[in-house]
């Protein structure tokens, strides 16, 4: 456990030290919140929901922030590989599983912090937190998104040689995951075939879970969301650990 803590500590230290990264990765979500949230609020009315569009997309933007930060944290292993630091870790008398778990938890922690920052900023544009249990539910879902997608990033990084493929992954994997997740639109109003696609996207359950926590309403039963996302997280961590075990340096 102390090894996992050691690796976690390093990730968090590095994150807290890179102020420009923290501010930088707030840019896009804040932009979307303002443009979409405030811009479309008066135009869009959602069926069966008392909240406005701004409130509706806040959980989506929080999920996005957690998603991007966690995938990015996972993929950072490539840098460790290139700058040689990974060797130092891998040659120590510790198991690769411990290293991988430490990285995953470190990535998830930074991702959740990033999500919380968006949540705090959202308070200024109209979000109000009415119930503490609901808030905690949202946190739990953020943690699950963070863990699963950091593990996802590690899995990708284990098979990549350098950062050249990063753009590819971003455009063809991460953006579709975000776009299809129902972060920006209610999934019930979609044509049936698109709806089934969104139900295949694990992030959908994260977004819906956070939405339930913060707004008290969701289109997917939160218990279902929790079960699906937990299953996905366990699968990703096992899969990531498996690929990381075979990493070459």
């Amino acid at each position, binding site marked *: 456990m*102390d*090894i996992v*803590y*050691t690796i976690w*500590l*390093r990730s968090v*230290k*590095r994150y807290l*030290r*890179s102020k420009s990264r923290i501010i930088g990765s707030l840019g896009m979500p804040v932009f979307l919140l303002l443009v979409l949230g405030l811009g479309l609020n008066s135009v869009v009315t959602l069926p069966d929901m008392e909240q406005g569009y701004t409130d509706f997309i806040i959980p989506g933007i929080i999920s996005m922030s957690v998603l991007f930060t966690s995938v990015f944290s996972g993929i950072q292993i490539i840098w460790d590989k290139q*700058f*040689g*630091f990974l*060797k*130092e*870790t*891998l*040659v*120590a*008398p*510790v198991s690769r599983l411990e290293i991988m778990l430490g990285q995953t938890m470190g990535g998830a922690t930074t991702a959740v912090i990033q999500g919380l920052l968006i949540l705090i900023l959202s308070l200024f544009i109209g979000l109000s937190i009415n119930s503490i249990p609901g808030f905690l539910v949202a946190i739990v879902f953020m943690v699950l998104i963070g863990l699963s997608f950091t593990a996802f990033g590690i899995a990708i990084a284990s098979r990549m*040689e350098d950062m050249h493929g990063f753009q590819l992954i971003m455009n063809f994997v991460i953006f579709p995951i975000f776009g299809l997740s129902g972060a920006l639109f209610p999934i019930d109003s979609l044509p049936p075939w698109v709806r089934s696609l969104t139900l295949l996207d694990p992030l959908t359950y994260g977004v819906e879970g956070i939405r339930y926590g913060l707004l008290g309403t969701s289109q997917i039963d939160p218990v279902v969301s929790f079960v699906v996302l937990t299953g996905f997280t366990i699968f990703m961590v096992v899969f990531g650990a498996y690929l990381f075990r075979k990493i*070459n*340096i």
Partner: protein
Amino acid sequence: MYAIEVEKLTKKFHGFVAVDSISFSIERGEIFGLLGPNGAGKTTTMSMLSTMLKPTSGRASVNDFDILKSEDDVRRSIGIVFQDQSLDEELTAHENMDFHGRLYRVPKDLRQKKITELLELVELEDKKDNLVKTFSGGMRRRLEIARGLLHEPEVLFLDEPTLGLDPQTRNRLWQYIEELNKEKGITLILTTHYMEEADRLCDRVAIIDKGKIIAMETPENLKKSIGGDVITISSPENDDLHAMIRLQPWVNHADLHNSSVTINLKNAEQHIAEIVTLSSANKITINNISIHKPTLEDVFLHYTGRTIREEEAKTKDRMRMMRRMRTR
């Protein structure tokens, strides 16, 4: 008691034999050098001994632990300074040390004590809270050596410890390495392609070329094995010069290389005039002539027929090929 025993160790990468059935033993407290050009298989050997790479065949033990059966015991008992930098630049010197100590499960009190002690040893104590990215190449190397010693290994692996460092820093590092060996009795195994480095530091040197050990002795004995003096001549007519010199009765042996002829003989001072006279009588121009005592460079030349510098240029291509194969 041996610190390291290696028996017929072999590593192949997709048909390319990087290390070819090498065997050697290193005694405790010894400084042992693997000397050879880039791509000779030095780093591959180190990687196998440090359990980073699985050998294709053969066996080896480090501190009596088998590198295949007791990986973790081997890892715990060795320290490594890699050829390429392996520090976290976003952390401070102290944090890099602390991270290492935690990974090797050094208890907290001891860890703090050792970190202070080692940072003092490598004269980085006053810079301990600076980020590593602000450090120079020499400082980073020193920090890496200090880090490698934190968990009190019995054997320290140094892969090209002074590569790319300026002569002054190199000298200082050599002093550290010697102190470590004398004061702490640590066994050191280092790879290098610098002849002076091997000569100055190592108790014994294994010359390795194309994956094979071609000579293994103390630097003194290696040089003695050549015997006498060495004269190096460069001339536009190297071929003719070589043919002529070869036949002289006082020549031990003469070798022809791309840009020079080297002659091995006793009492070089007495024969140098004769060489010059002979050359002008045969209308051979001499650009350059020099006498020196044999160095490890001559030893390498003697055993392989090439200078280590000639080898550098050629191996670059081979290295690239190997890297491509490994990454596939």
